[in-house]
């Protein structure tokens, strides 16, 4: 039996809604939700005169709220399309959730990466017979920027001959245009000479503490622990075009800092890279802030719990939309190897929480056709990933295979390689664990779309109103309050994670979509390999 729904529009939020025009009657038909993003799509039908229906075009891009019989907002998003059918004097209103609007713009931020990697064939000696004991490159942000903290520093550094000492890299403050001699922080332990290549080498290390990157001039100072040697020394890549506008190159002879290339005095710059180490949950906050500046009244704030505990570079090169970045960060999840799920509140706040554990289950009863499949199962997972950085400076790596031994014993090894971008080793390992957790057992194949009598019970057995269209929970198919005791090695096929759902307003049908069901909701295929 059809329940009652009401519809309201707004240009801002639910506190400023207004009713549709009086001469138009609007009826919701279907709406859907997903675990990462909340409101997904909705379709409504409008009845009225053609003139009134054509007037609905003026509401395209307005926020729309669908209220249940109890006055709860059960779906909200924006009007994307109004298709008027003159033969029936109706209009089809197609709506999308706000996550789609958050995908309208590409996310680019230099917060997290500062580099001058215009590498040429020119090099500058360090530690050879002329007595250069230190070289340094100054840097600062210019133009419009957001301040951030660097946690990694990298430089193209090569070795001529053989050395057995250690190269130290420090971040120093500025003193009247030269390094102050006071280290803000340094690469812990330095770089052993054994790790420095002969040609085209690049060293990158983690700093002992965050180094501010802002409009203040600071220095990357490279030194070594051994003595000068005319045959065995280091070379750093420099660019003699003097193209870097944020700083300059200096060298030190043990008593005096001198600008420019040693010998010629030609102005130049040492190639370098500074990379941030920003907790992924903080990165999500930065993305949300950026969304608000591009598409107001879409996502206005972030509430996330717990903090991810994973740190990667916040730099984004503008190749992904805001929502793609948020979604990827959700799937990377937390240091506990659990992904995030996300919902957008009617007021536009992004609420991000860890996916619930499978210990708390809901119950789906009714006319359900259920089976089991190992088609998309994987119990051995490896993530192939690239680190953050500019297009010319990313590096590729892969995690070890992450495996579930119980699942392998029972079903044999089923391997999955997933490719991803903008990760580091820790977050990639966490992502591999999260994917393994989601795919390590056979998944349920459930046909509820052709049925009409699905009843949903919450964790305590209470009947859940179908029109709330809940997603992001573990469920079993069975009678109310059923308890099926499974070991972790043999999870019942009836146990499923509800990744998405659609609600049919005409029939009051709730149609959940389990994870790994063959649909566009498949989390592995959206952004990853």
């Amino acid at each position, binding site marked *: 039996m059809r329940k009652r729904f009401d519809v*309201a529009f707004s240009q801002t939020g639910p*506190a400023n809604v207004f009713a549709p025009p009086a001469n138009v009657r609007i009826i919701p038909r279907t709406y859907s939700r997903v675990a990462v993003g909340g409101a997904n799509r909705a379709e409504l039908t409008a009845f009225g005169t053609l003139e009134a229906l054509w007037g609905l075009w003026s509401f395209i891009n307005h926020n729309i709220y669908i209220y249940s*019989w109890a006055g*709860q907002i059960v779906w909200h998003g924006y009007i994307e399309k109004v298709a008027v059918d003159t033969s029936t004097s109706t209009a089809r209103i197609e709506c999308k959730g706000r996550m789609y609007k958050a995908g309208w713009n590409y996310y680019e931020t230099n917060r997290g990466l500062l580099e001058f990697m215009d590498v040429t064939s020119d090099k500058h000696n360090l530690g050879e017979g002329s007595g250069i004991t230190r070289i340094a490159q100054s840097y600062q942000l210019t133009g419009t920027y957001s301040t951030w903290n660097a946690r990694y520093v990298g430089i193209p550094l090569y070795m001529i001959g053989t050395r057995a000492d250690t190269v130290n890299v420090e971040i120093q403050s500025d003193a009247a245009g030269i390094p102050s001699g006071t280290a803000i922080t340094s690469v812990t332990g330095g770089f052993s000479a054994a790790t420095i290549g002969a040609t085209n080498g690049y060293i990158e290390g983690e700093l002992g503490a965050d180094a501010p990157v802002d409009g203040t001039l600071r220095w990357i100072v490279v030194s070594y622990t051994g003595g000068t040697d005319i045959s065995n020394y280091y070379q750093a890549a420099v660019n003699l075009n003097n193209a870097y506008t944020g700083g300059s190159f200096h060298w030190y002879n043990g008593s005096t800092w001198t600008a420019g290339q040693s010998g010629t005095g030609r102005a130049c710059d040492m190639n370098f890279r500074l990379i941030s180490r920003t907790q992924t949950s903080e990165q999500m906050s930065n993305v949300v802030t950026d969304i608000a500046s591009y598409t107001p009244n879409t996502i206005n704030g972030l509430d996330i*719990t717990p903090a991810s505990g994973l740190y990667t570079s916040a730099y984004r090169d503008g190749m992904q939309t805001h929502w793609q970045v948020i979604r990827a960060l959700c799937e990377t999840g937390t240091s506990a190897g659990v992904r995030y799920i996300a919902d957008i509140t009617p007021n536009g706040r992004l609420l991000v929480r860890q996916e619930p554990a499978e210990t708390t289950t809901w119950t789906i009863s009714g006319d359900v056709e259920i089976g089991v499949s190992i088609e998309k199962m994987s119990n051995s997972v490896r993530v192939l990933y690239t680190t953050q950085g500019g297009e010319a400076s990313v590096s590729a790596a892969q995690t070890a295979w992450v495996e579930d031994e119980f699942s392998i014993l029972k079903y044999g090894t089923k391997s999955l390689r997933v490719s991803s971008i903008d990760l580091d080793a820790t977050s990639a390992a966490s992502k591999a664990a999260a994917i393994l957790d989601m795919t390590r057992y056979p998944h349920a194949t459930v046909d509820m779309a052709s049925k009409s009598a699905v009843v949903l019970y*919450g964790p*305590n057995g*209470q009947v859940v109103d179908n029109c709330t269209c809940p997603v992001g929970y573990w469920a079993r198919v069975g009678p109310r309050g059923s308890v099926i005791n499974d070991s972790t090695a043999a999870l019942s096929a009836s146990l499923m994670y509800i990744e998405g759902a659609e609600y049919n307003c005409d029939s009051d049908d709730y149609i959940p979509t389990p994870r790994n069901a063959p649909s566009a909701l498949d989390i592995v295929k959206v952004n990853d390999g």
Partner: protein
Amino acid sequence: MAGDAIRFLNPDGSVAVTLDDSVITEFGLIPASATAQSVTQRATIIETPIATARSNINTINALFERARRAQRDGDSTRIYVEVRTQTSDSYYRSLLIDGNITPDTEAFSAVYYGNGYLKYEISFTHAPWWEGADTQIAISNLNGSNNTAGLTIENHYVASTLDNTFTIAAGVTTGDAPAPVRLQLTNTQATALGYVIVGVLQNSASWPGNHWYQGEGYASAEPGSSTGSNAAASGGQYLTLQVPGSGSPGVSSWAITGTSFGVMDGKSVAPLMRLYSTPGATTYAGVGVTTASTGVGTDYMEVGTGGRHVLFPPVSWPPRAAGGTYAAGSFTLNTLNTGTTTTIAVDALCMFPTDCLRQYRCNDTITNGSTLVDDGINGYSYVTVSGNRTPGVVTYGTPLEILPGLATTFVVMFSDISTNAMLPAYTMSAQLYYRPRRFTI
């Protein structure tokens, strides 16, 4: 049928055409049904002179067309048909949906047309009910009994003195079908109001307001929480509830008597949390109802920095109906805060029954002396300001209706629109009307 008559009304309620037993030769009234979307009636008419018959046919056909367009366009035009079964009866009306008129196969025969008569059949489709005259319902609460002049509704409940509910006594309303009501709420104080929520319980008995109002004077065990007193708080008290930071959920719960559970007997309530002050930071809250053996709860709802009240999704009260008397249980307020530890000032929680639950957001505010009219009988809502209707009222939720003969409780609260505050000082007066509805006349 002797004395039967059919009247077709103009949109303004005046009678356009009357067909009485002098022209109706056949009319078997088919009863309506609760499950039907509409009912179609047929009547055979033999009318003279022919010019009058043609004029009536034209008028009725025009009304049928207006009814069809009103259905299609959803505007405020409503065409009614009235029926009387005998002379001594009153007319009952129903909403006209569609209709047509067909000349009888013998219409142009010498017997009829030749003698100045026109024989035709009217077929009309109407809503599945018949309703009587517009009638005011006497309502009662702590401020008065069987009131029709305008019953004062306070914005909070204080035992024996202040009341945010009103009731209809059993046996007062008549008919045999659910009937929509016209609720008129007049602002009786200076602050303009912009949001009203009304919940209705249709039951075998009405219940005093203390069962709807929970958490008043409650002292939370949540560390860092305290109670405060202020005349601007509901009942003069509020709870400063500490919400732990960093995603650690906070839990506060208080006892619910078995008697309160018996009020609803397993029906749903929608808890509304009113806040004493605007939260300094966004937090989230969910509610639960538990007994010794089971519980129900809601997901977290945003407690935003711009609001002074949060309406939670309906929960069963108690979790499962058992009939008879109930053991005591508890009501739980769960909080979630992803930032640093903060507080929210919980004034009280009001449980809204959900047999009907209606909210009104009035973009044209209800100023002092203005009236919010939810005219469920005619299907629209508006605010009257100096006698003029301002239609900027957004309504959502189930329309208000009564079940004939049952005791019925209305729970009401309201806020201003500038701060969303539900201050205890706000008051309204209520009047209630309906048209008794019948499936059969």
